[in-house]
C-alpha cells in the first residue's frame, strides 16, 4: 500500500481526501471564528438602543460579511468540504474520491476565495449591500468603489470550488461504492450528500450568471439591471433566489445526513422508514428549486404568481416532516444513549422543528408580507441555519473525533458545551421572534428607545455571549482531548457504517481489503466483516499493486473495473494560485495582465494533463 509524503510539502501536494478534509476543516473553523466575531460585534452594538460601538458603514459591512462567511465560507465548505470529503469515501468503502486532484483543486480555490474576500474587510472595502446584494443598491451608481466587485468576484471564485466539489461527490457516490453497495444499501449520509451536490450543481450557475451580469454592469457598462436602459431590477432577485432557496437545503441536507448517522449509532437501531427518509432527502432539494419567489412576496408580484409559490412552499414541508418523525421514532424504538453527539441531534430536532414551524407560517402570503425583512425572519432562519445545520456539525465533530484523531473526547465538558450552546442559541434567537413582531426591521445599525425593543435585544446579546462560551468550551474540549484523550480504538460507538470497520485514524489507503456490503448498516453485518478479515488474511481483494481503486456500476454497485488513481501532485495548488491571480487582476481592471494569467492557466492545465511519476508503492 502507499503512504503520504511527509512534511509541509506532503500537505501542499496532497490528494488524499482525508488530508483535504482536514485542511477544509481548519480553514472553515478560522472563517467561522471571523463570521462569529462579526455577529458578536453586531449583537454588542444592538444590546441597547442608540448605541454606537460601530458606525453605519462598518455595520453594513459586518452583516454582509457575516452572511457571506457563514453561508459560503463556513457551512458549505464545512459540510461538503470537511465532513463530506473525510467521511464519504470511508462510508462507501472507497480509497479516495473519484477525482483526487480535482478535490485538492477545490480546496485551494476555496482557500484563495476566502483570502480574497477577507482582504476586502482588512482594507475597509468589504461588500456592504447585504449577502443578497440587491440592485440598484449594488450598482456602481449607488455603491462606487471595489466593495461589490469583491463580492461578485469572490462569489464566482468560491462557486468554482463548490461546483468542482459537487461534481466530484456525485461521481464518487455513483461510481466508487464498494462492490455490493447497491443504491438501496447506501447510508443515508450518502443520499444527503448526493442531494446537496445535485443541488449545488444546478443552483450555482444561476448565482454565477447573476454576479457576472452585475460585474459587467459595474465595470463594462452593460445594462442587465439598469431599469432606465431596459434592464430589470427584479432579474437580480429572481436569479439570486433561484440559487438562494435551494441553497438553504444545500446547507441543511448534509446536516440531515450527519444526523442520520449519529442517530443509529447512539440508538443501536436502523433509521425507521429508511426508504422514505432517503427519498425525502432527495425530494426536499428537488422541490426546493420551485419555491424561490417566496423570498420576494413583498415585491408586488401578481397574486397568482405569489399563490403558486406559496403552494410549492406548502409541499416542501412534507419531506421535512417525514424525516423529523422518522428520527423521533428511531429515538423511541431504539435504545437511546444521550451522549454529547446525540444531545446535539436532539437539540437539532428541536431547533429544526421550531424554525420549520415559523417557516410554514410564511406560506400564508399576507403574514409573510407583514413580517418579511423583520427580526421574525432572522429568528426563523437562524433556528434553521444555526439550529438545523450547525448543531449537527457540532454533534458530528464529537461523533467522528475518535475516528479522525484516535482519541476519545471528554464527555462531561461535552455535555456542558451542548447545554451552553442550546440555552445560548435559544436565548439569542427566540426573542427575535418577539422583537420582529413588535416591528423591528432587519439591517438596522441601531434602533430608537421607546418602541419596546430594548429588553428582547438585551436578552439576545446575552444569549450570543453564552453561545460563544459554549463554542469555546466545545473547541477547548476537542483540543485537550486530542492531547490527553484516551485511545478510542476503531469503533468506540459501535457505529453502523464502514468507517468504523477500519483503524482510527484511518490509514492512507482507508481499506486494506475492499469490504463486502450487503446493507446500509455494514458494520452491523457481522458475517460480512468476518469475511473481510478472512479475505485480508488470504490476500483476496486487497489491490496492492499501487494506488488502485475498484469502480462499480452506478445503481447496482456491481464490480466494473479497477482504476489507477493519481498520487501527490503539484498541479492543483498551482492552478488554484493561477486562478487567484486571475481574479485579483480582474478586480484591479488589469485586462492585459488578465490575458497573460489566463495563458498561464492554460500552461498549468497542460502540465495537469501530462504524465506524472507515481509515488512510493511501499
Amino acid at each position: 500500500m502507499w503512504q503520504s509524503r511527509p512534511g509541509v510539502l506532503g500537505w501542499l501536494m496532497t490528494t488524499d481526501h482525508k488530508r483535504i478534509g482536514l485542511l477544509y476543516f481548519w480553514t472553515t473553523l478560522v472563517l467561522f471564528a471571523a463570521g462569529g466575531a462579526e455577529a458578536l460585534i453586531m449583537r454588542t452594538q444592538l444590546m441597547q438602543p442608540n448605541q454606537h460601538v460601530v458606525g453605519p458603514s462598518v455595520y453594513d459591512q459586518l452583516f454582509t460579511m457575516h452572511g457571506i462567511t457563514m453561508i459560503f465560507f463556513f457551512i458549505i465548505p464545512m459540510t461538503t468540504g470537511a465532513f463530506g470529503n473525510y467521511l464519504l469515501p470511508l462510508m462507501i468503502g472507497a480509497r479516495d474520491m473519484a477525482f483526487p486532484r480535482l478535490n485538492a483543486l477545490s480546496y485551494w480555490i476555496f482557500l484563495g476565495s476566502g483570502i480574497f474576500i477577507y482582504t476586502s474587510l482588512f482594507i475597509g472595502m468589504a461588500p456592504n449591500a447585504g449577502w443578497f446584494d440587491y440592485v440598484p443598491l449594488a450598482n456602481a451608481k449607488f455603491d462606487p468603489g471595489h466593495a461589490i466587485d469583491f463580492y461578485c468576484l469572490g462569489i464566482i471564485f468560491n462557486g468554482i470550488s463548490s461546483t468542482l466539489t459537487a461534481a466530484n461527490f456525485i461521481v464518487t457516490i455513483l461510481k466508487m461504492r464498494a462492490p455490493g453497495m447497491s443504491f438501496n444499501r447506501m447510508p443515508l449520509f450518502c443520499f444527503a450528500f448526493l442531494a446537496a451536490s445535485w443541488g449545488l450543481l444546478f443552483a450555482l450557475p444561476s448565482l454565477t450568471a447573476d454576479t457576472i451580469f452585475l460585474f459587467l454592469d459595474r465595470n463594462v457598462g452593460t445594462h442587465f439591471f439598469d431599469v432606465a436602459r431596459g434592464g430589470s431590477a427584479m432579474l437580480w432577485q429572481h436569479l439570486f433566489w433561484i440559487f438562494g432557496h435551494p441553497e438553504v437545503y444545500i446547507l441543511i441536507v448534509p446536516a440531515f445526513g450527519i444526523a442520520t448517522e449519529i442517530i443509529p449509532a447512539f440508538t443501536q437501531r436502523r433509521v425507521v422508514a429508511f426508504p422514505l427518509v432517503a427519498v425525502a432527502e432527495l425530494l426536499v432539494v428537488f422541490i426546493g428549486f420551485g419555491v424561490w419567489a417566496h423570498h420576494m412576496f413583498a415585491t408586488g408580484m401578481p397574486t397568482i404568481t405569489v399563490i403558486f409559490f406559496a403552494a410549492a412552499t406548502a409541499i416542501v414541508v412534507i419531506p421535512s416532516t417525514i424525516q423529523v418523525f422518522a428520527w423521533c421514532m428511531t429515538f423511541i424504538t431504539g435504545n437511546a444513549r444521550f451522549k454529547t453527539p446525540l444531545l446535539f441531534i436532539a437539540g437539532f430536532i428541536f431547533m429544526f422543528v421550531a424554525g420549520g414551524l415559523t417557516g410554514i407560517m410564511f406560506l400564508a402570503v399576507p403574514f409573510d408580507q407583514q413580517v418579511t425583512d423583520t427580526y421574525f425572519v432572522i429568528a426563523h432562519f437562524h433556528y434553521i441555519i444555526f439550529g438545523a445545520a450547525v448543531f449537527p456539525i457540532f454533534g458530528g465533530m464529537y461523533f467522528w473525533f475518535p475516528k479522525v484523531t484516535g482519541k476519545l473526547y471528554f464527555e462531561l465538558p461535552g455535555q456542558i458545551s451542548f447545554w451552553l450552546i442550546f440555552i445560548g442559541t435559544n436565548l439569542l434567537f427566540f426573542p427575535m421572534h418577539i422583537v420582529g413582531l413588535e416591528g423591528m426591521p432587519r439591517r438596522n445599525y441601531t434602533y430608537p428607545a421607546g418602541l419596546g425593543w430594548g429588553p428582547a435585544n438585551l436578552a439576545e446579546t446575552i444569549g450570543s455571549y453564552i453561545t460563544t462560551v459554549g463554542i469555546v468550551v466545545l473547541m477547548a474540549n476537542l483540543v485537550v482531548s486530542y492531547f490527553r484523550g484516551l485511545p478510542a480504538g476503531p469503533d468506540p460507538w459501535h457505529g453502523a457504517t464502514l468507517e468504523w470497520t477500519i483503524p482510527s485514524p484511518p490509514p492512507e489507503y482507508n481499506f486494506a481489503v475492499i469490504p463486502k456490503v450487503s446493507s446500509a448498516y455494514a458494520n452491523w453485518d457481522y458475517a460480512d466483516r468476518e469475511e473481510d478479515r478472512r479475505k485480508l488474511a488470504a490476500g483476496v481483494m486487497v489491490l496492492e499493486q499501487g494506488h488502485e481503486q475498484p469502480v462499480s456500476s452506478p445503481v447496482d454497485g456491481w464490480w466494473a473495473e479497477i482504476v489507477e488513481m493519481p498520487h501527490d501532485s503539484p498541479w492543483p495548488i498551482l492552478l488554484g494560485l493561477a486562478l487567484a491571480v486571475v481574479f485579483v487582476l480582474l478586480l484591479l481592471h488589469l485586462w492585459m495582465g488578465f490575458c497573460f494569467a489566463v495563458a498561464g492557466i492554460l500552461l498549468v492545465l497542460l502540465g495537469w494533463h501530462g504524465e506524472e511519476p507515481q509515488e512510493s508503492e511501499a
Partner: protein
Amino acid sequence: MRHTQGYPFPGLSTSRGTKPRRRIAAAASALLPLTLAGCGGRQSVLNPHSHPAGDITNLFWVMMAVAFGGLALITGLLVLAWFRRGRRGFGADADDPHPGERQGWWVVVGMGVVFPLMVVTALFIVGNGVIIGVTQAPAASSTAMTVDAIGHQWYWEFRYPGTKAVTADELHIPVRTRVNLVATTADVIHSFWVPELNRKIDTIPGRRNRILLYANRPGVYRGQCAEYCGLQHTHMGMLVFVQTRAAFHAWLRGQAAPAAAPTTALERRGEQVFLSGPCSSCHTIRGTSARGFVGPDLTHLASRTTLGGLTIPNRRNYLARWIVDSQHLKPGNQMPNLELGRAQLRALVAYLESLK
C-alpha cells in the same frame, strides 16, 4: 402633557394641531399610551388598527397556537425517548434489528405526511384564499383617494395627486377611508411598511406597486423602510397621522398652498439665507425660487413633527443642529453640514419655523 411612546426621542408631543385644538389633542394623546400600554409599542404587528392588519394578526395568533402544539409534540417525543432509554421497540424482541418498525411507519406516514398535509392545506386556504383578498393591492375603483409614496435615500416623499401638496416622512390620511397607496422609488429599492395598518410593499425601480391603506380610528402610526437601502436605512421612518375627514381636508388645503411669506425682519433675512445659499439647490419651497429636488420639499416644514426620517423632533434647537451638523445625527445622509454664522443660522431657523 406629553408622551414618548413610539418616538425615537423623549419628550415630543404627537399633537401639533392648530392652537385651539391643541389642548384637546394633547389630552387625547395623553390617553393614547394608556390604551396602547401592553400592546407592544407603536410599530407592532400585534397591535393592528385596520381590518387587513387585524386579519393578519388573528391569523398569526392561530398559527402560533398550532406551532406551539407541534413543537410540544416533538419535544414530547424526545422526552419520551429519554424515559424509554434502555428499552427497544414496543414489547418486540430486543434482538430484532427493526424493533417497532411497523408502528414507526404508521407514525411517519400519519404524522409526517397526512397530518401536515391537512394543516398546510387549511392554512393555505385561509391565508391565500381568504385573507389575501383583503391585503392585496386594492382595485382602484374601490378606493376614495390616492397617495403617492416615493422612497428616497433616506426619506419618504408623499404626494397627493390632484393637489399640489407634497410632504416628507409624515403622511396624513382620513379615518375609515380606503386609500390607494402607490409606492415608487426615486433611487434604490425601499419598502413601505406601517405594520399596524397593513403589510409591507416594496418600491421597485420602474414599477408602481400599490397597497391599501386604511385605519379604523384616528391616531398616529409609526412605519419604517423595511428593505435595506444603504447607509441610513435605519433612519428612514415615517408617521401616518390618521385624522377625521374634516381635519384631514383642512390639513390638505394648507399643504397644497404655497409657502407663507416671511413676516418679521428676521424671517426675511432667513429667507435670503435660504435662497442665496446652498439650501435652494437641493430643496423646494413652493412660492419661492427654491426648486431643488434632492432633499425633501420644505414648503410646510414647520407643520411636521419630526426631521430626517424620524431621526430628531422638529424643534428649534434640533433644527438648528440638523442644519449645521446633520452628518453627526444621521451619518452619511445626503445633506452636507452647512457652515453658517450664528446670526445667519438664527435667521434661517426662524424662517423655516415660520413655514407652517
